[in-house]
């Protein structure tokens, strides 16, 4: 028996397609109903909490929000700036460290040791500690202006920490390339360096783009840690407003701004990751 709709000219749907469409409709209904139920519960129940009026006034105050938000946006430009010069530096330093761990030349052995120690140390220390130690410690040597700027040393702290992670990501990418690629390159007479540069690295770097996107998102947030050593970026600016208005809403404003950047970026990273899985299967 067929389900062909004779005469209508439409391609006939198979039994399987009809069954799957039914399933899809049903799960859509269930998902919709349960989402509405949960949202309603939150909207109705949370205001019943005894402290809600106070929380609403100090965290979700529209007047404070609209008064401080433009200034927070201005302050966020400083975060963007710090991010903009840290990210390329991290990419370069991370790649160099990843490559240094593979050098064969015995004269460069110290480099190999150094890069291994580097990744161990900077992955092992909390970022905020590194920011404090480098951000306060190095200017403490009595450097003249502008070399005592917290922007420089705070950025360096971020660059060092993130390079350590990114180096490990690059290294895992390099190791994920099948040895047969190296064999093919070497059988053509390519040198070790050319094999790495023209054959292994281009594939490895592409493969770790999604992982590195996640690092960029994390970096974007951690830029706020520099506020601890001076720069009046968005987090510190929000703190200033909090004291001024005796209200926490500026922190919510800052969170909104961060989310506006990180959510699209996260979605994009997920998209890249999914695309990569599709391409490889």
């Amino acid at each position, binding site marked *: 028996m067929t389900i062909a709709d004779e005469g209508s000219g439409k391609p006939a749907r198979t039994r399987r397609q009809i069954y799957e469409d039914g399933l899809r409709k049903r799960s859509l209904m269930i998902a919709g109903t349960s989402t509405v139920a949960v949202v309603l519960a939150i909207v109705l129940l949370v205001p019943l909490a005894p402290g809600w009026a106070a929380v609403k006034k100090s965290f979700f105050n529209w007047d404070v929000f609209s008064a401080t938000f433009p200034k927070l946006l201005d302050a966020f430009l400083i975060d963007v700036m710090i991010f903009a010069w840290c990210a390329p530096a991290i990419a370069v330093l991370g790649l160099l460290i990843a490559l240094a761990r593979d050098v064969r030349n015995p004269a460069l052995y110290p480099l190999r040791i150094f890069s291994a120690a580097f990744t161990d140390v900077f992955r092992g220390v909390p970022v905020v500690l590194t920011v404090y130690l480098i951000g306060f410690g190095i200017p403490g040597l009595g450097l003249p202006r502008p070399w005592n700027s917290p922007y420089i040393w705070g950025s360096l702290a971020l660059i060092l920490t993130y390079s350590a992670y990114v180096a490990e990501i690059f290294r895992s990418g390099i190791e994920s390339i099948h040895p047969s690629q190296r064999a093919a390159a070497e059988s053509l007479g390519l040198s070790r360096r050319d094999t790495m540069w*023209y054959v292994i690295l281009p594939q490895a770097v592409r493969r770790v783009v999604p992982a590195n996107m996640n690092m960029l998102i994390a970096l974007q947030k951690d830029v706020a840690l520099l506020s601890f050593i001076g720069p009046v970026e968005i987090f510190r600016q929000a703190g200033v407003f909090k004291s001024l208005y005796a209200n926490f809403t500026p922190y919510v404003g800052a969170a909104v701004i961060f989310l506006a950047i990180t959510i699209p970026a996260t979605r994009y990273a997920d998209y890249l990751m999914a695309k990569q899985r599709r391409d490889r299967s």
Partner: protein
Amino acid sequence: MKLSLRDVQKTFGSNHVCKGISLDVQEGELVCLIGASGSGKSTFLRCINLLEPIDDGAVYLDGQDIAVPGLDPEPVRRRIGMVFQSYNLFPHMTAVENAMLAPRRVRGVSRDAIRPEVSALFERFGLGDRMEHYPDQLSGGQQQRVAIIRALAMRPEVMLFDEITSALDPQLVGEVLDVLLALKADGMTMVLATHEMGFAREAADKVCFLADGRIVEEGPPDVLFTAPKQPETQAFLERALK
């Protein structure tokens, strides 16, 4: 003698893969290595172009020992092309870029200078319209032909083929074997590890049967296939030709 191997020994840990293999290949000769999987054919081929450093023995190319420990393997590898079972094309480059990379980097020829020569190879082997394709846009047979072109672009004196048709669908095997026949007509010196008994029988000048890391028997195909002397060879051929 173009290529001459003497008592080649290779172990991986406690696994003795090549237990003293000797082989002579004359200029323009096609030598086929046959034998069960794990008999040491692939490792032996990889020893010839020094992809695997040999533990003991010697490899002579034009009379010069190239397996001297400490000798730079790169200049030697330029003279010996190799094609692999799994093609091993560089997936991030187009077919033509795959073929031009080594001439550009190793021979120092510019893209413009090498392109006509490489294009001619693509045309000759029926891939003139596939040069700008990426490997994953090509069929297995096409990829393997690109891999052969990539090796030929270095103008090698000797070509090694490691079971290059084993990963192909049966209907694609012919187009790759045709390339080998064309190269043989050119006078290329070739060593081929293969399971294609029909091809070995028709095209080879010499066939070597390997088992357990040794050459058990070698000879011209019409002798080895019709009147093998060793019982091991007889047993293998009986199974392989069934």
